[in-house]
């Protein structure tokens, strides 16, 4: 992927291309912004531009050996660091430090992309800090985070911070059409409810049965939950608590759902709903709750999502949520 082919984030992309063109890339960047907004995609495209042997106007040429290696994840000077289990451990950061002290393999630069960098352990973060103080020439570190507040301030202060804003629904829909084969009505719906984060929309479209199938399953879990017994609530939680990604997707859809109930309760019309196509059902469900109850439910879901992102035990967090929701009626 070239920087020029990315949708949205125009200002950031202009700045990155200028840095490549003028050979003035910083030694450390922090790409901050919501999950799924395009930080990693941009980082990899930036990496390609930095490693390309024939860059064109600050962007990768897309044809040379380096570009093709980056595309196939085979470039020896582009390193990706992702959490091992729940965190990025000191051993992983030490390995990065070792690689940084080696000369580049193929060209003049080494690029390191640290995904979910806020999940570094305290030890790992302190270890990385030392490198950020005096990185060898030719090293570009890109830290990625959707929870930058969880990073050490001393780390942030050594990075050039680029903050990614949510895209417009039209931009999300362009991306969805390019990378998925979701049907038009699903694209339209997903681009509205993805919160401007194409990564989320793509993930929802990629689930079994597409978004509509997924939504159906989630609505079955949510329907009548406020009247369910504790045993019933735990049983429903078990369906999505086995896997963190599944749980996060479920929470995402729950949030949209309860927001729709709230909006419907307040406006009584389908115009502002995410799930506009389900207006009659939403209208009916909305009457079961009071406004205060819905606000509390939404808050609970948001809290659960945040604790999952901060790596609280998934099963525990989801069971707690479902039990609280069961008591909400």
């Amino acid at each position, binding site marked *: 992927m070239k920087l020029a082919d990315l949708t949205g984030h125009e200002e950031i992309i202009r700045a990155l291309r200028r840095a490549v063109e003028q050979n003035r890339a910083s030694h450390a960047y922090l790409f901050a912004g919501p999950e799924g907004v395009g930080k990693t995609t941009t980082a990899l495209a930036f990496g390609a531009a930095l490693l390309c042997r024939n860059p064109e106007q600050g962007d990768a040429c897309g044809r040379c050996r380096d570009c*093709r290696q980056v595309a*196939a*994840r*085979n*470039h*020896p000077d582009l390193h990706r660091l992702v959490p091992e289990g729940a965190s990025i451990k000191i051993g992983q950061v030490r390995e990065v430090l070792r690689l940084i*002290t080696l*000369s580049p*393999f193929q060209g003049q630069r080494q690029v390191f992309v640290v995904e979910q960098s806020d999940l570094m352990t305290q030890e790992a973060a302190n270890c990385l800090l030392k490198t950020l103080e005096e990185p060898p020439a030719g090293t570009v570190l890109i830290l990625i985070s959707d929870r930058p507040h969880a990073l050490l301030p001393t780390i942030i202060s050594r990075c050039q911070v680029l903050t990614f804003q949510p895209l417009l629904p039209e931009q999300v829909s362009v991306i969805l059409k390019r990378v998925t084969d979701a049907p038009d009505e699903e694209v339209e719906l997903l681009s509205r409810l993805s919160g401007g984060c194409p990564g989320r929309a793509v993930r929802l479209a990629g689930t079994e049965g597409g978004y509509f199938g997924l939504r159906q399953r989630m609505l079955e879990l949510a329907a009548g939950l406020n009247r369910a017994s504790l045993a019933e609530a735990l049983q429903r939680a078990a369906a999505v608590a086995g896997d963190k990604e599944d749980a996060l997707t479920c929470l995402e859809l729950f949030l949209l759902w309860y927001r729709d109930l709230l909006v419907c309760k307040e406006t009584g019309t389908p115009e502002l709903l995410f799930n506009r196509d389900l207006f009659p059902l939403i209208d009916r469900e909305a009457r079961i709750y009071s406004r205060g109850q819905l606000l509390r439910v939404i808050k609970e879901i948001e809290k659960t999502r945040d604790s999952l992102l901060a790596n609280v035990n998934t099963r525990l967090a989801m069971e707690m949520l479902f039990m609280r929701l069961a008591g909400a009626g």
Partner: protein
Amino acid sequence: MKFNASKPALMHAINAVQKAVSPRSPLPVLTGILFEVTGNRLYLTGSDTELTIQCNIEVETETEGAIVLPIRYISDLVRSLPDIPIQFNSIPGSTSVIITYGTSQVSIHGYEPEQYPRLPSINRGTGIQVPQDELKEMLRQVLFAVSNDETRPVFTGVLMQVDGKQFRLVATDTYRLAMKNYQLEEEIEQPVRAIIPGKTLGEVARLTGNTEEKISIILEENHAFFSTADLKIASRLIAGQYPPYEQVIPREFVTRTRVTTREIMDATERASLLARDGYPVVKFTLQENSCVVSVQTQAGWIREEISGLVEGEPLEIWFNARYMSESLRALNSDELCLELTGPLSAAVLRPAGDDSYLSLLLPAKPPKD
């Protein structure tokens, strides 16, 4: 790509390169071996990017070409084939190969050769020639002193330095230091120095033969290359400044002795058996005409007196037994010159009558009772 090769030749080449291949590399293409046929030679390359090993063998070529084949299949597969001519055939543009042996065939999927990391070609680096057995011994004499502490990368490497006719290796973990010089036949115009990871030099030592045939060493900006007729090893370099090691080598001594290496080594090893758990230090007492190696702990005591010429003041000094044994083993000489600068400062070990090598060892603190 189409060629015929014998099983032993293929196995030889696969064994040589597979040490550099990691089946769990995050780069898919590096989980394989690069096969490249040019002229009547097959070049096999394995790499973890830090260490790259290339071995070439003679084959009967029908068409030139290249492909990357996953190590987890190709290595075991070739090993299990019968010892009859083996043909490799890959259709241009495809990424699989058909291997024919007798009337049987097997096909393996691989990767595009274009995806394989390409070493910068050797162009302007400084090249020297050293007999393989010499290099192997030189490496053995310094590698023991390389540090394993990844937090201080330059110490995990060996300094390789060429100046005029002198080729020098230095390693130190800051507790000990080993330095070996070798006199080159040809003089080098530009002095060069590079820090090479100890790990990859260990492989160089393993792969070089016990032969006087020369190996050529080329130091480039980012890599060191070691090559013989059928083997090429490339190592990435460690960036950074090697510490000024020369100023820590003492020039004046208060005591010096000359003893039989074997006797000191055996005495040290026996004495260490009684040393305290967790603090394996051995006492050396230099007195008139002898060196006494001793240990006294709750377990008991041992005292061995080794006769030898002692010059200078009598001295008591403690050494870590393992460090002392390793230094003695690396000495490669029947007789040892041990030169001391004081009970708490560095000692120098030299092979008697050979000033091309020295190692330096810091003493240990005397054990508290």
